[in-house]
């Protein structure tokens, strides 16, 4: 008698499965990560204790974690709304850069004596517009020619990175500090910097959380959100029902780009204080995709996942003091991503291991005996 796995698709898994599968994914990632740490001669338990300690234990570690979580919530939302509609916006990275470029440009161009709230509103909106336009460069070819957005958004990332580098390292642009002996961005005026709450944590976190709640509400409770979900389920059916599929697609990518652009603007205003390509190019956009995937593209879920992954990244320097290469945090992040992705299969399909019963030979055995 042999055992055989039978696989059958299901629409919505029971809540027990929805709890067990992601938990199992996280545990699997921690176990594999722990094995890598142990096999390379370090103490895995000590590493995990350090990660928790240095990012969540105490006010100061928590503020550091929340400061990094701020852009990750926004880039996570950017990926979540796009991926949810099955639009694969891999361009959060570039949209963030363009948001940062325009936001820092506005901060330097607008007279610095205007009221702070006005200034911050201007640069955040400017960042959003820049991100939306940059995403539009992929959205419009996608809507009208069905040009693969995975590739176009990806290519635009590199273009944006080169452009940002050019402004600081390749030219004497408006963004560059003319007095500095090494190439760096001009510091933005005091009125353009995000006020702080505690230690380095700034009010950007409020913007990020409000954006998450707002987006969740829009997707759940409005006609627009309903149509977006309908288009993601079936383009054809939605078109037949009279929905404007192309404008939905463009608007979703524009919102996605705007969120990443806001992340760039807030990083400039709250953390970096100038256009600094090396600091800004720290994969915040890519990490946002991980955040969204682990949160299963749920806008509210993005908040705790962003905090978790930010905590992981923040702990890198403490691990280094233990003699453990800090790059382990990226490996752990990748493993979480991988196992959560694998878990999707077990959420979407019911897998049962059943013993196969030998099939009785067909025929009228009883009659033959007579």
């Amino acid at each position, binding site marked *: 008698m042999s055992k055989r796995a039978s*696989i*059958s*698709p299901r629409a919505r898994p029971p809540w027990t499965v929805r709890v067990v599968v992601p938990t199992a994914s996280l545990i699997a990632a921690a176990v594999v990560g722990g094995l*890598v740490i142990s096999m*390379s*001669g370090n103490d895995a338990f000590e590493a995990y204790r350090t990660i928790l300690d240095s990012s969540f234990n105490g006010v100061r570690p928590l503020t550091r974690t929340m400061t990094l979580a701020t852009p990750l919530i926004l880039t996570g939302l950017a990926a979540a709304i796009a991926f949810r509609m099955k639009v*694969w916006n*891999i361009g959060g990275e570039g949209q963030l850069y363009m948001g940062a470029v325009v936001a820092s440009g506005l901060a330097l161009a607008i007279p610095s004596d205007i009221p702070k709230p006005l200034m911050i509103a201007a640069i955040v909106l400017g960042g959003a517009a820049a991100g939306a336009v940059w995403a539009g460069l992929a959205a419009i*070819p996608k809507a009208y*020619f*069905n*040009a*693969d957005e*995975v*590739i*176009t958004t*990806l*290519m*635009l990332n*590199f*273009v944006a990175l*080169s*452009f940002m*580098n*050019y402004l600081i*390292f*390749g*030219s004497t642009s408006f963004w560059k500090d003319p007095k500095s002996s090494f190439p760096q961005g001009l510091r933005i005026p005091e009125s353009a910097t995000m006020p702080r709450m505690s230690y380095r944590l700034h009010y950007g976190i409020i913007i990020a959380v409000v954006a998450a709640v707002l987006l969740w509400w829009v997707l759940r409770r409005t006609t627009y959100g309903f149509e977006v979900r309908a288009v993601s389920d079936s383009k054809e059916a939605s078109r037949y029902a009279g929905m404007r599929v192309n404008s939905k697609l463009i608007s979703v990518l524009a919102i996605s780009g705007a969120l990443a652009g806001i992340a760039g603007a807030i990083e400039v205003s709250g953390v970096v204080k100038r256009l600094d390509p090396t600091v800004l190019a720290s994969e915040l956009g*890519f990490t946002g*995709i*991980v955040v969204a*995937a682990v949160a299963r593209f749920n806008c509210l879920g993005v908040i705790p996942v962003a905090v978790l992954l930010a905590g992981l990244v923040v702990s890198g320097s403490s691990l*280094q*003091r233990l*003699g*453990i*290469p*800090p*790059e*382990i*945090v*990226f*490996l*752990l*992040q*990748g*493993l979480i*991503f*991988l196992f959560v*992705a*694998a878990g*999707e*299969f077990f959420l979407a399909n019911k897998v049962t291991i059943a013993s196969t019963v030998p099939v009785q030979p067909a025929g009228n055995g009883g009659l033959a005996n007579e």
Partner: protein
Amino acid sequence: MNDTVLVLSVVSAIAAGTPILFAALGEIMTERSGVMNLGVDGMMLIGAVTGFWVGVETESAVLALLAGGLAGTLLSLVHAVLAVSLRVNQVISGLALVIVGGGLSAYWGNLGGTAADGSADQALVQTKNGVSIDPIFPEVLQDLPVIGPIVFGHDLVIYFSWALVGAVGYLLYRTQFGLSLRAVGEDPGAADAAGLSVSRYRYVCTLVGGFGAGLGGSYLSVGVIGTWAAGLTAGAGWIAVALVILSGWRPWAALLAAYVFGALRSLGFTLQISGIEVASEFLAMIPFVATYLVVIVVSANPARARKIAGPAALGEPYSREAR
């Protein structure tokens, strides 16, 4: 621009293009079978660190390159399981590979290099000298003007890559295996009905793609740069992904495109010694802008550009039950 500069820039374009060429040839195989693996950069990085380390330990360039290829293959196995067996979204799975490959290679390469006193000179991989790969033709031939450096000046790996371009082309277009794998990439349902095992072809092609990327990565660290550093590829894996599209999934075009990309990577330097002022950032943009435009042009004219359009079932998981 005088002759020496021109020759030098062709030579450096070929060297810089070869790692990308290996990765792109592998990805062409993978994508032709209908699997999109965006994890090329991660596989190249794993290949680069493994190859460099094996080169240091064994002092054999052949073993170094093989080990790099095998490391890439191992990582691509993860993608095969996720994308083919578990039918996970291939974009997600590929991106996960990039992060895992980048993280693991940087971690491994930095082991022992972060002593408590902050000194980085005990790192497992960085500090030692790697093996070198020398040109194979006698110096008499190498010293010929112009054609010497361009035709005879390379190491064996570059000649191997030329042979490989022909081999992949032959495999794809002239063999039963190639016909079958292209069928699997164009219409897995029909291929399945014709008795081909869709998942077997896709597994094999994904692993071959991983080997190509790993080999490219190890040639980059061992042959071109001669050292290992975290993030060594500087996005070369993404360039390989772009190049597959630019080449229209054809090996010969990939060879040309790889050298053009290689030239662009070293063009800033070339222009500088020729006294021409162009910001290197704009040169760096060209391949990406070109790919962006090509994708749009191809999508806009599907009929005219069918010759360079991708496999029809690219990126779609195949499930017999869901037909």
